[in-house]
């Protein structure tokens, strides 16, 4: 039996019954990485020594702890934009170099307290800016289902590592779809919680009004278990919300009878891959057969979301990334004076997409353009949020595709930034509105590439999102399929 293929809940059960040890499980994960990562390239940094030590500690705790966390002894992968004390954090950027974080992100502290084993840090688009993981300064990650294709992005390394059984589950971040779109591309489950649900303290800031931490996992129950472990108010993040954290895994009863599911007509548009539409429509029928009530809804400002997002996100990014100046940490160029040191350090340290976004963000915030672009976008963002508020008056959750196509070929869209931005059309509105949303597998296209179904919930109603996803998952077999590597 391949232990690395286990889910969190299965591994946890075996660990508690002492059928396996965390050391055995962790070793199996590293063996799997050794056998497959020269093809997938999911990891930027492996933390084998500290992971094996954490596994030993977990085995001790397993024999003493009467009520162990479901994550105790379970090997997890972490996107390389979380600060991890003692493990290099690069954000897939040359500007951070071999940055060694002096502290842990709050979500990492919570995982450590739960006794999880941290396997290593996964690849991403530099500073989480991208939809394909091709913008990494180090190397692209390859999709385990087809090595010529992208794994999605920006959390492409985490999604690929989960799909390839190179970890039991993973954490990612999602600013415009960066958990859900790679989860869809790699045939796994990805959950972006409500803005404020999980602390952002210690994740490298990209667009602070939208960044959110969430799980990427092999099934819906695992996503629920991970969310329970990382959610909650954090004094170190003033935008983390005071909402009580339910035991989300308890809401997974497979029942969607009477649940009202909205299907937005604006999300089924020309340009989407026909097989994606067919699979998503079939998934909606499946939920209807299980007793959900399907209703067509309208989100009239959908067509403006990409424009709003790339104004707000780049504006926030240009401000957040001002800190990379070569003074206190990261890359510093040799130059004749201070200004030139800033300019050359940033030129040498940032990749093309990051520069493009800093430029765009600086432009829309600059004198003479601030009202026309930034403030305009903030008003249209209100309209997008109100669309969802109105829709949720008569539905409990919304069901859509996660992405308009399955994973495209590496290199296919890299030369055309606008085309790349449009691959986020179904995911970014959710970040603009601050809502929770999950992607789970709902089929494959003719080339054998996975298709993702997105379920969107009301603010802080991850329970309904997870319950709906679980009901669909139980009625289908997609989540049991794994790529052959």
């Amino acid at each position, binding site marked *: 039996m391949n232990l690395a293929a286990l889910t969190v809940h299965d591994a946890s059960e075996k660990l508690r019954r002492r059928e396996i040890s965390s050391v055995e499980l962790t070793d199996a994960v590293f063996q799997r990485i050794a056998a497959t990562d020269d093809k997938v390239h999911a990891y930027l940094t492996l933390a084998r020594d500290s992971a094996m030590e954490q596994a030993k500690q977990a085995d001790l705790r397993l024999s003493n702890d009467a009520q162990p966390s479901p994550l105790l002894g379970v090997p997890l992968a972490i996107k390389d934009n979380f600060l991890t004390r003692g493990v290099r954090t690069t954000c897939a950027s040359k500007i951070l170099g071999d940055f060694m974080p002096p502290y842990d992100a709050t979500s990492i502290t919570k995982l450590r307290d739960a006794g999880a084993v941290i396997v290593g840090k996964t690849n991403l688009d530099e500073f989480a800016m991208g939809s394909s993981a091709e913008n990494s300064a180090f190397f692209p990650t390859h999709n385990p289902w087809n090595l010529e294709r992208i794994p999605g992005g920006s959390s492409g390394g985490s999604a690929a590592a989960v799909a390839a059984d190179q970890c039991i589950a993973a954490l990612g971040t999602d600013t415009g779809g960066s958990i859900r779109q790679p989860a869809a591309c790699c045939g796994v489950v990805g959950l972006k919680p409500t803005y404020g649900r999980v602390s952002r303290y210690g994740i490298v800031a990209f667009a602070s009004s939208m960044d959110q931490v969430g799980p990427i996992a092999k099934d819906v129950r695992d996503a629920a278990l991970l969310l329970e472990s990382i959610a909650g108010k954090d004094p170190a993040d003033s935008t983390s919300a005071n909402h009580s954290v339910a035991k989300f895994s308890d809401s997974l009863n497979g029942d969607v009878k009477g649940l009202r599911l909205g299907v937005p007509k604006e999300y089924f548009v020309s340009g989407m891959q026909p097989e994606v539409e067919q699979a998503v429509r079939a998934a909606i029928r499946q939920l209807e057969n299980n007793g959900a009530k399907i209703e067509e809804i309208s989100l009239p400002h959908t067509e403006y979301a990409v424009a709003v997002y790339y104004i707000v996100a780049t504006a926030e990014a240009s401000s957040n990334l001002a800190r990379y100046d070569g003074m206190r940490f990261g890359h510093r160029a040799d130059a004749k004076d201070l200004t030139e040191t800033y300019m050359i350090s940033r030129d040498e340290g940032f990749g093309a997409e990051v520069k493009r976004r800093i430029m765009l963000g600086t432009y829309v915030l600059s004198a003479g353009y601030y009202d026309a672009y930034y403030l305009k976008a903030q008003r249209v963002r209100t*309209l997008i949020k109100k669309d969802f508020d109105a829709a949720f008056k008569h539905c409990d959750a919304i069901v859509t595709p996660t992405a308009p196509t399955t994973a495209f070929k590496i290199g296919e869209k890299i030369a055309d930034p606008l085309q790349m931005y449009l691959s986020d059309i179904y995911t970014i509105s959710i970040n603009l509105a601050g809502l929770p949303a999950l992607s789970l597998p709902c089929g494959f296209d003719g080339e054998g590439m996975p298709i993702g179904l997105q379920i969107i919930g009301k603010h802080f109603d991850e329970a309904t999102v997870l319950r709906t996803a679980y009901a669909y998952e139980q009625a289908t077999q997609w989540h049991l399929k794994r790529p052959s590597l």
Partner: protein
Amino acid sequence: MKLTRESVQRVATLARLRLTSDEESELTGQLDRILAYMDKLNGLDTANVELFNHDIDNLSALREDKVANQPNADALLANAPERDETFFKVPKIIE
């Protein structure tokens, strides 16, 4: 073409980014196309729409003024490109 090469140079200076001449011309074209796409927002009347705001009900983020994270100078300086004892060393600012 709305965006000129001169405005790209001006923005690069504001952003403290050195760009090569090739980067400048490539970015001028790309940013121009992206900004043209964003102009679709002008078709919407937003005169009576308020600015976006997350409804997070944190009544107060204040806490007691107590040291919660004892600064560890060595750990903080460990990533510095250049240091001098407990200081970050930076290029000369005043001639």
